[in-house]
């Protein structure tokens, strides 16, 4: 872990509002488009060489945050600031953006979809170099592709280059995708559920690869997952998301050993432990995560919280620090302190 004081990313009060479908008639009438808040005021930072995990169910906005970090969303839908090395990504000039695209990369969830099946593995890995005109000679291009594939564990690289993604297994494809990200020597990586589509038996390889990049090259990473136990396994810190907002953030060990927010506690209790479970140990929540358009008032978790009080549906709890950067947004914590 790094002691460098300046974070590679700092995110302040990030909100993302997606416009909903609007009839053509209303569009020409100039009516304001209805929106849905996918991300609703999120603050966090990622230190150099750190792996931060975003954990949440579908609809929690975790992938949207990942895209916002990489400036993949329409700037019109974003408010708040996302700073990469102290500079707001929305203010990037064209040249800034070109450098930025080389330094921040992404790994996708589905290795079957993230690679264009009509292009060879070589091209998949070499494409970033092509589109950014990063290599001058063919030899240099070939060498960089070879090194990246080797690093991604595709050995020998030559045996993969001429083939196409559909000739490979899911794990090998994900390695191609990782090689395609590594070929530019990025400093930062968004890994969006990189193992959720893979067989259990090969998840470890991909996770080791990501951890290895951090260990050997100091690559920082935002690891997006729905699986708290995977987040706990590989990351330094974990942020728990619920309906577009961070409920709890802190060191991975802290979150696992001493969860503060009721949502985290419940998530933790249903994680499989591969041991005989004692009766009643699971704290199941009722219902499902509401649609972001119908988020409850006050604390957005209040509609499913087993400890919900009257206050919870009236006002929204602020993040409170319980020491060592372990923060949670819940009124129960205030009561404990008081």
């Amino acid at each position: 872990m790094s002691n460098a004081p300046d974070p590679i990313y700092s995110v302040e009060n990030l909100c993302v509002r997606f416009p909903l479908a609007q009839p053509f008639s209303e569009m020409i009438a100039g009516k304001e488009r209805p929106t849905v808040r996918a991300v609703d005021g999120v603050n966090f930072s990622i230190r150099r060489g750190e792996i931060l995990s975003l954990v949440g169910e579908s609809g929690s906005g975790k992938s949207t945050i990942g895209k916002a970090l990489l400036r993949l969303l329409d700037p019109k839908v974003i408010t708040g600031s996302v700073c990469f090395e102290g500079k707001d990504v929305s203010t990037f000039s064209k040249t800034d953006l070109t450098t930025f695209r080389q330094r921040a990369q992404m790994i996708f969830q589905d290795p079957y979809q993230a690679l264009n099946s009509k292009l060879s593995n070589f091209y998949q890995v070499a494409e970033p170099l092509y589109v950014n005109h990063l290599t001058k000679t063919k030899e240099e291009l070939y060498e960089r592709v070879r090194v990246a594939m080797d690093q991604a564990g595709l050995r020998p690289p030559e045996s993969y280059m001429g083939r196409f993604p559909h000739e490979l297994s899911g794990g090998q494809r994900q390695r191609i995708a990782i090689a395609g990200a590594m070929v530019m020597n990025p400093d930062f990586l968004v890994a969006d559920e990189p193992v959720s589509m893979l067989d259990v038996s090969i998840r470890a390889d991909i996770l080791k690869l990501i951890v290895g990049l951090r260990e050997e090259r100091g690559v920082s990473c935002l690891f997006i997952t729905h699986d708290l136990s995977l987040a706990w396994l590989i990351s330094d810190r974990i942020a728990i998301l619920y309906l577009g907002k961070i409920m709890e953030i802190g060191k991975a060990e802290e979150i696992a050993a001493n969860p503060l927010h009721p949502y985290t506690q419940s998530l933790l209790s249903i994680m499989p432990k591969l041991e005989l479970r004692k009766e009643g140990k699971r704290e199941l929540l009722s219902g499902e995560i509401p649609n972001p358009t119908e988020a409850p008032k006050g604390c957005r978790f209040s509609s499913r919280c087993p400890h919900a009080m009257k206050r919870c549906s009236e006002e929204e709890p602020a993040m409170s620090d319980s020491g060592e950067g372990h923060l949670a947004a819940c009124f129960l914590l205030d009561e404990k302190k008081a």
Partner: protein
Amino acid sequence: MALLEVTDLHTEFAVGKKTLHAVDGVSFTLEQGESLGLVGESGCGKTTTALSIIKLLPGNAQITSGSILYQGEEVTKKTRKGIRDMRWKEISIVFQGAMNALNPVMTIGDQIADAILLHENLSKEAVKARIAELLERVEIDRKRATNYPHEFSGGMRQRAMIAMALACNPKIIIGDEPTTALDVMVQAQIFDLLERLRRELRMAMILITHDLSAMTDTCDKAAIMYAGKIVEYVRVADLFTEAAHPYTRLLMSSYPRIGSERKMIDSIPGTVPDLTDPPKGCRFCDRCPEAMPICRETPPPEILLPGEHRVSCHLPSLIQKEGAKHV
């Protein structure tokens, strides 16, 4: 007499000119009220095994040998009518991905009624009352019987599917990856519900899953399948301490154990063998860290260990284990 007894089941698919041995000599028994987990990676034949029981196989698949005894009757010899009468009334299924498994143009109530009326001669009112009771059992408001599937959330659809599966009071319920594509919390809810209903209604259950961890809270016994065969058959209570087959043990170490010591999980290198041309020895030998020369040549013997524990492996430590019996 066991409720369901499957012996040496072989089911094959015709793929072009080749034959794919999807299920290759599978045996297990299921007692009344018992739940069995069929676990394995995708393509190892677990769904085919389950669907063979009610002969719900695609046109290019066929049960080639073996016997399936349901309440002492041979299913493979039943007439079409006999099979149809058995489906849903005796054995029902909760399919994966309830969005597609429910008919989009019928209301939930009508779809449940469709199943009831097919097997029972009930009055309109009785059917209506039954639907309301079923929906409440799965914690859905009875008024929502008039809703269409698309008006339900993912978890609710799966609950409705469960209600439909219970419609004719079956003795066995098959869950075919019932929680894929659902959120972790909803997954836990569905497993919890299935487990509760099974106990209340004293049904037997076969749970098909690729996720070893999902099954451990729900099942009494686990059958670990690899490439069309059951490699290990063990009580879940013993699984964590007694797992004997190298595949089972590797599979167990590919899950992180949150709360204990942080240790990187393991992977199983290599890929599943081609089932149109399976290896002649042990099917796991290419990926097994403990493979011996004999593993490539001879199929492993089945070893009976104490406590209904069966393992198919050549490992001497197993063969010579105390109380081990050869089959």
